Every structure is written in C-alpha cells, then in structure tokens.
C-alpha cells in the first residue's frame, strides 16, 4: 500500500515533467536567448 502510493506519486510527477518538457522549445536550444525566464519557483513571492 505504502509502496504503491510512493511509486504512483513519484511516477506521476516524473510523467508531468516529461510532458511539460515536450512542450518547451528551450529544452534543446537557447539560441533565441531571452533574458533568463523569470522563475516561477514553488513559493509565493513577495
């Protein structure tokens, strides 16, 4: 039960990362380099 919960949660997040990467052109090239993208972070910002 605990094993399944941990595996499901971590794999769901890994899957989400992979899907998001598919949609990002800056994964492979920063040639059209803009200034660093403003970081979203996880935290609420002042």
């Amino acid at each position, binding site marked *: 039960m605990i094993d399944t919960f941990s595996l499901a949660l971590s794999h769901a997040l890994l899957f989400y990362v992979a899907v998001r990467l598919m949609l990002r052109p800056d*994964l492979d090239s920063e040639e059209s380099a803009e200034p660093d993208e*403003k970081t979203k972070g*996880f935290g609420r910002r002042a």
Partner: protein
Amino acid sequence: MRDLAFLGFLAVILGMGFRRPFIFVLAYVYIDIVAPQRLTYFLLNSVPVSQIAIGLAVLGWAVADSHKHTRITFRQVVMILFLIYCGITTTMADFPLPASDKWGWVWKSLAFAIFLPFTLTTRLRMEALALFMTLSAAAIIIVGGVKTLASGGGYGVLNLMIANNVGLYESSSISMAAICIIPLILYLRKYNTIFPKGWPANLFCAAFIFACLLIPIGTQARTGLICIAVLALLSLRSTKRRFLYIFLMGAAAAVAVPLLPSSFSDRMGTIKTYKGDQSAATRIAVWKWTIDYAADHPLGGGFDAYRGNKIRFETVSSSEAGGQVNIEANVVEDKARAYHSAYFEVLGEQGYPGLILWLTIHVVGLFRMEVIRRRYKKRDEQNGQWMGSLAEALQHAHVIYLIGATFVGVAYQPFIYLLVGMQIGLDSYAQRRRAQESDDGPEWRAAPQGWGKQPHWTPAA
C-alpha cells in the same frame, strides 16, 4: 499490475525520447536510480532496459543534438584517466572474479558521468535532470519516510521495496543520498520553471524534505546523522538571519529528540562510545590494514581487495557496578571486512595514483562550484542568479557526500556521479554564458549598431 504500470511508464517515456532525444538521458537516470527491473517480477526484469536507455541516449545525442558547444573539460579528462586506471587494476586484481563484477557497474557509472555534461546544453535540461534525480529518489525516500513514521524503522529492518542491498536501496547509501538532495530540492522549490507555483508544490517539498530527514532515523545508519549535521552547518552559509536559524534549529532538535525511537537514540549514542563498539573498531582496524596494504601495493589491489584482510583489534567497554567502574577489554579477530569508507576503498583498490585522480575529480568540483556561486549568486533573477544557486546546491550536496563517504564505502555510487556530471555541465554552461556576456555585455552598447552582430539580449540595467 505493477509490472504493467512500470512497462507502460517506460514505454511512454522512451517514446517521448524519439521526439525529444534528451528524454532518453532522463530515462536512463530514472532507471539507474529506481531500478524498475528489480521491482518487477516478469517482463521488465528480463529486458536489459538500462542498456537500451543508454544506447538510445548516446545515439540521440550523436544524431539529433547540436555539437556546436561540445567541449571536453579537465574533469572529464581526469574521469577518463580514472576509468582507464580502474580497468587496468581490474586486470591485475587480487580477486579477479569479484573485481570484474564490480567493474561491470563502476565503468557504466563513470562513463555516464563523462557523457552526461555533453547533453546539458540548456538551463531547462539541467533543471529537468535535477527534477528527475530528486523525483526518482523520491520513489524510495517516500516509502522509507512513511514506513519510519508508521513503525520507527530499525537498523537493517526498514523495508525499502527491495530486499537486497543494491544501489540506492542500501541503507547507508540512501541515508546519505536523501540528505544530499535536500539542497537540490530547495533549489528547485525556488527556481524551477516546470511546476506551477502554489501551496500543493510547497506542501510536497516540505513533506519530501521531512521524508528525507526521516530516512537516517528509519535506517538507523549513523552516517545519516552526521550528514544532517553537515547540512545544518552548510545551510548557515545561505541563511540571511543566522541567529534566528540557529534558534529554530535548536528548537526543532529539542522537539524532535524526545520523539525519536529509543533504538535510534541508543544506536546514535554509540558514536560517542565507539571504542566499545565492534562495528566502529572494525572500521579503524580495516583502515589501518588498508594503509599498510597500500604501502606494499602502492598501485592498488583492484576492486574488492579488502577480501584479503585479516584484522585483530581490541574493544574496550566500561560498566559501573556498586560505585566501581569495570573496564573490560576484548580481542576480536576478523577477516575480509569491507572498507566502510570511500577514501580507504579507493586507496586499497586503486592505490595512490587512483586516490589522487579520485580526489581531483571531487575537490576540483567543490572549487569550481564555489567560483560559479560567487560569480552569479548576487545577480538578479534575469541575469543568471539561478546558476549561482544551483552551484551552491550542488556544492552542498557534494560536501555532504564527501563527509558521509568517510564512513561508507560509496566511492563509485552512481548517484554521486550524476551530481558530478551535472556540476561539469553547469560549469561549461556558465563559461559559455560568460563568454557570450563579454561579447554582448555592457560593451555592446558602445559598439556601432550598423549591420554588425546584434546582441542576443539586453543586460538588465
């Protein structure tokens, strides 16, 4: 059912790799850490998934990636030399069979760390690698954390899904790795560009770090406690309100200590009374043996040379009865004891030349991360601050490893070489950015605007 889920997950991730080849690299990292083939009973355990992923990763990089900025760095050269040297000592090993077994996984770990930096050409790739490393480790750490909360764990009894001690599923390795990744989790919490911000992500980070801190308690590996202490000290460097931090740490420790299982406190107490502890006394005896062995075999004895040791040592314990202190000394004899220290592991197996190469790989890493940290940490967010923060996180993880490694034989632990690979990738990236800045930096404003080279981006005022 679990087998099918793993198979489906891997198939989809590898499928994505055909559109974005860097995902093959991430798939290999995932397989290296989680080892899904060991968690399943059929299908995956008969397929060489690891070899397939690494083959696709190298092929994807060779065929589809731009090699415009591919440069080999000093540390990669040192790692190649170290790899060749380990290969040579394996052919002359004292114990050829176990040595070739160990070589079988060590060379992969080193070779991947040499290859990895070539693929880390963008910020997003480094972020994706950090996310894959931490979330893959989360699969093991969350299990350990929840089980520790539920049962209190115990030395050698915490069930981390796989019964045999392999890779990160080994209790001392996971205790060390769990603490190592805390700086990376904190970095990702602030700088990631993939997950949306908000309370769910914050909650996950907090729970994940809590689970990481529970691992040394659950596995009762004493190394983990030392790693936590190192982490607490290192965090002081990046904390603005140091006194408040020290106060909060003290308060957290005061609350946590009474809640720790008594078996944990008892075991941690043996750090102080190491003279009476056979496990600690064995280590010291093996380390002395290794120094003598290296004096006779300065070029090393190949992997698993410790199998030849015969050690004899004394344990001293004291007990108090009726106001009298009785000191009892016992002589213990033992043989074929493992090194229980990465430094002595390398010294015994690869001799002094190997130890020098190995130390160079690690010490240069700490130094390079410090250079990047100082250069970028104080910049604003649009101008590369993330590089300074990532360098700091990687450096802290590395220091935790190097101190923890004094007491655990993890000289070739693949997880650490992923960190080393990421450090080299970040270093190359930062140097490229610096060169670009000096081309396009503040000076460009004064340059003629005509038809010449245009700036890529405008530095913030």
